[in-house]
């Protein structure tokens, strides 16, 4: 199985002809993802690596009715509009890679998408990968391998770091979901945990957090109260980060007494989550927890 993306995923890339857009469209195609179309206004009619470019998402969907997912890589000021266009065109999953999206835009388009029952991953995220089936994002595909660990993360490159370790161990991933580093994101830890709990192939979950906000605390509370059925290993970045400083992006900031490392780790531990103190310890813990489980 796996979650969110898989062999049934058919993708349109919004912002496919930009430098990054073209690079990652090619990379997804090489990975084997069913990227059926790209959209760039005023560039309709062109082709990119064999896939057609359309002026609008509506046209792309009309020509390729199987499209159900959009990868959004348009410039930050245009992301909200891209989301409205994708939702109105009937897509079911949007993965927003773009960073620096204004937070008021995010609040509005997430609400719109949610009211329409459309799932959003991101913004400011590396995307979603189900190894061997579909990569809908910008992560280096070769780091991941098909396996039994579900990964959910607020951080891009840190996910690669930890995924690499998991892959090397031979455990591999069912799906890795980068939910994004912004203060407000589409899917959050709890929602992805719920999906992994229902996914039979996922035997354990890795949760990669950061200082800032209370998403880790809420996830811990959810696990504690609900009694999550699978082992969870967590790593939280930023133990040495000073308060009131933005560590790289708006999401990672210890502010107004909220979101520090200790609070997160304490909450996770009290929920029975195994907290690793270094990225590499994640694999070590997993291999103990999954001893005997066949990847």
């Amino acid at each position, binding site marked *: 199985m796996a979650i969110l993306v898989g062999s049934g995923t058919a993708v349109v890339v919004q912002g496919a002809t930009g430098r*990054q857009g073209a690079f*990652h469209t090619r990379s997804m195609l090489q990975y084997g993802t069913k990227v059926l179309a790209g959209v760039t206004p005023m560039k309709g009619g062109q082709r990119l690596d064999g896939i057609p470019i359309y002026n609008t998402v509506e046209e792309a969907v009309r020509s390729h009715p199987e499209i159900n997912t959009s990868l959004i890589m348009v410039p*930050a*000021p245009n992301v909200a509009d891209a989301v409205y266009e994708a939702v109105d065109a009937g897509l079911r999953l949007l993965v927003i890679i773009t*960073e*620096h*999206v*204004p*937070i*008021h*835009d995010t*609040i*509005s388009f*997430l*609400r*719109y998408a949610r*009211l329409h029952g459309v799932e959003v991953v991101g913004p400011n995220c590396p995307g979603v990968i189900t190894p061997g089936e579909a990569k809908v994002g*910008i992560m*280096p595909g070769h*780091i991941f391998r098909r396996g039994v660990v579900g990964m959910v*993360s*607020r*951080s*891009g*490159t*840190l*996910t*690669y*770091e930890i995924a*690499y370790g998991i892959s090397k161990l031979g455990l591999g991933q069912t799906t890795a979901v980068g939910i994004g*580093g912004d*203060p*407000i994101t589409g899917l959050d830890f709890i929602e992805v945990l719920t999906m992994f709990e229902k996914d039979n192939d996922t035997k354990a979950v890795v949760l990669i957090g*950061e*200082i800032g*906000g*209370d*998403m880790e605390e*809420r996830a811990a509370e959810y696990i504690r109260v609900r009694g999550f059925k699978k082992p969870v290993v967590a*790593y939280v*970045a*930023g*133990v*040495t*980060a*000073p308060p009131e*400083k*933005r*560590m*790289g*992006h*708006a*999401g*990672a900031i210890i502010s*107004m*007494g909220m979101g520090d490392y200790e609070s997160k780790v304490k909450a996770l531990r009290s929920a029975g989550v195994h907290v690793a*103190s*270094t*990225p*590499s310890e994640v694999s070590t813990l997993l291999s103990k927890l999954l001893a005997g489980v066949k990847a």
Partner: protein
Amino acid sequence: MKLYEYQARQLFQAYGIPVTPFKVARSVEEAVRAAEELGGRVVVKAQVLVAGRGKAGGVKVAETSEAAGRLAGEMLAGTVKGEKVRSVIVTPYQTIEKELYLAITVERSRRSAVMILSAEGGVEIEELARISPEKLLKIGIDPLIGLSQYQVRKALLFTSLSGQPVKTLEEIIKNLYRLFRDMDCELAEINPLALTPEGGLVALDAKIILDDNALFRHAEFMRMDEGEGFEAEARRLGFSAVELDGDIGIIGNGAGLTMATMDMVKLKGGRPANFLDVGGGASEEVVEKAAYLILSHPRVKVLFVNILAGITRCDEVARGLVKASREVGGGKKIVVRMMGTNEEEGRKILVDSGLYPLDSMEEAAEKAVQLARSV
């Protein structure tokens, strides 16, 4: 981007939110003149961005204009919690009947804006939230509808004010929300909002944080960063950076990985000199600039570069590092750990220049710590 109080007050005025009269002063003379014009007892307030200004001596009352000038002079010559004071405001001392707290901010867990209101202002709101949460009213705002009239009514009922102040508060709430939306605020806060003995409501302080990502819509605030030092310089170069007090410079790509790298150095017994995230897809030039910036910092002994290349390419990273290392002498060491796109090419470039990349983050961190000790 946090605004200075005087900037926030100017926005309040533009949006019809009553504030006490005030004047900005950048010298003793200006402060004296301001106090004279305002007349009577005044408050002199240092214009700084750090929190906790009041307790740190950044807010003082003056009975005369001379006293105001003297206080301003002291403030302008000094710092508040380490931040240099470039200006003060002078504003009349206001007698207060009652203090309220009103703010609109973004709440992550609700994925929306919330209005927060308390009939007890002046205090630290986080403190109040912990001790007496029942004294706080929180109202989530639907972004597609905006602040509804029924929500405003609910807020007004909560205050147990009556008469004219209720009408004034209604206007203040609506105007604050307009400001919050129009200006892409992360926070718009009035603390305290004072009920005067005459039955007026007036903001005695003003706090606004704008969303950096939305500054393109607010050209008036897109001024160049005027600060000095490492962080300001890094920002001007387009990096997210934080200065720390150690001797091992850190460069990573991605906030999480860079933080984890910093954490690892500390765990291995080292002291990070900074946090610097070069972001995704950094080119040779970008890496060179970042490395140069850190290597030229007097406190830095070792530069630890940790790159997981996805969009980024290892060969570009390697070339940038080699260039920067040639420009900066002084026996500073560079430890590199990189993995991913074009890894082999990158390694070759490093090795050819005498920089030996390491395989694991832990190994590299240990190496960096060891080098920093031996320098």
